[in-house]
């Protein structure tokens, strides 16, 4: 991941392409056939130490324990809520995993259908059974603001190198932004600013393949929202 921006040319590979035939180990999204490492998804070839893998360009979100995600309540049971976290599997949120004391059958008083929640993935077992929790600092029900859905493979672009993109977005648009690992992004701010932030996020998603994205997004926001010069100078 770290080396990704350092490389000048990024080679796009498709499933079945030979990544390496000289004895490197298969990294992520790669497999070995007859001593040759081959790609198993469409993406960008990525060499890291002595492994060669692929950074996917598309694909659905697969939860990993520890991920912070934004989900929508889609079903209510007597002792749990079903949350849609944009994964191929349902994610139950058990009453023991919320910060309130909930009586059996009283779940709908706390979270209703369509409510948006900030969660953490507690565990994912090998049969891909997911558990999520709301018992951690900062995890809560989200109210107000706007929700934007982007492809989860573009999340790292939204965040940027050591958070450069996201901190720029937050500072320049003066919005509160929370990015879920599943590609759900919550943006809260004043009407005009939030609108610009939403468009900036969509721009990052559309142009994720391009270089110099941070500068481009900065230009875009400046053209839409005149900035106070002195305040944001240290951003570079």
């Amino acid at each position, binding site marked *: 991941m770290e080396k990704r921006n350092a490389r000048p040319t990024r080679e796009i590979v*498709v499933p*079945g392409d030979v990544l390496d035939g000289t004895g490197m180990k298969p990294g992520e999204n790669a497999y070995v056939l007859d001593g040759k490492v081959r790609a*198993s998804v469409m993406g960008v070839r990525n060499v890291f130490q002595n492994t060669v893998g692929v950074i996917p360009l598309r694909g659905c979100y697969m939860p990993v324990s520890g991920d912070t995600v934004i989900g929508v309540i889609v079903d209510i049971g007597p002792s749990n809520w079903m949350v849609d976290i944009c994964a191929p599997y349902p994610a139950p949120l058990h009453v023991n995993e919320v910060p309130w004391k909930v009586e059996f059958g009283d779940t709908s008083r706390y979270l209703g259908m369509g409510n948006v929640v900030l969660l953490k993935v507690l565990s994912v077992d090998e049969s891909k059974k997911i558990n999520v929790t709301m018992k951690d600092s900062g995890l809560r029900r989200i109210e107000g603001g706007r929700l934007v859905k982007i492809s989860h493979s573009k999340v790292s672009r939204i965040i940027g190198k050591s958070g450069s993109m996201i901190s720029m977005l937050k500072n320049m648009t003066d919005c509160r932004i929370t990015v879920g690992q599943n590609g759900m992004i919550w943006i809260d701010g004043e009407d005009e600013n939030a609108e610009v932030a939403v468009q900036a996020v969509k721009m990052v998603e559309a142009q994720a*393949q391009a270089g110099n994205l941070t500068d481009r997004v900065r230009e875009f926001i400046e053209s839409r929202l005149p900035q106070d010069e002195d305040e944001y100078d240290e951003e570079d």
Partner: protein
Amino acid sequence: MSGHTDMVLVDEKGMRIDGRTAEQHRPIKIEAGVLNNADGSAYVEIGKNKVLAAVYGPRECHPRHLQDPTKAIVQCKYNMQAFSVSDRKRPGPDRRSIEISKIISEALEKVVLTELYPRASIDVYIEILQANAGTRCAGLTAASVALADAGIPMRDIVPAIAAGKADGHVLLDLNKEEDNFGQADVPIAIVPSTDEIVLLQMDGNMTREEFDHAIEMAVGACHEVYDLQKDALKRRYSKVQKEVSGDEQ
């Protein structure tokens, strides 16, 4: 296959009615990512065949009884539009389209890394917009590009093409007339990295020698189709990059 005609399908110079030689396939055009609302999609033209494929998933498998706790299943739906053939095709699934859906999903299941997504389902929809013989091959070719476009992990992309026999000649990629009035039709799909066969059917009669020749020709052509498939997927992203660098100037 069963029809009779006075038409000369292959003339004395070995030229076919559409001007191809025995070993030429029809012109192929592949485009990836043509639909916005599907997770992955592809559009394929092989001669007069026009095929659209869309992929959703992996997603929760419905109906639940089809779930496999050890791996994902590939559900395929091959559908011919009513206007795809010259006589209106009665819409809805029939015996033929159920069979084609089954063989295509089995061919794709061989390459998709289904064990990564237990209990899930990967749904493939193939719509035949215009048919001119060889739609199952065009459909499978489109479906595998759409799967790769959806970012689904797979061992390889599957190309497919038919070979056959008409007027006593072994021919590659039969067109409508050759299929209707010929003696045999052999669609084949392979995994290019290993040359494994994932789909093979035969309708009609051929000698063993003719069959071997047909397979050899079709496998060679599959590799050509494979290059076009890869090119279509890569082109999709170089286009995005060009558009972005274009508005810089």
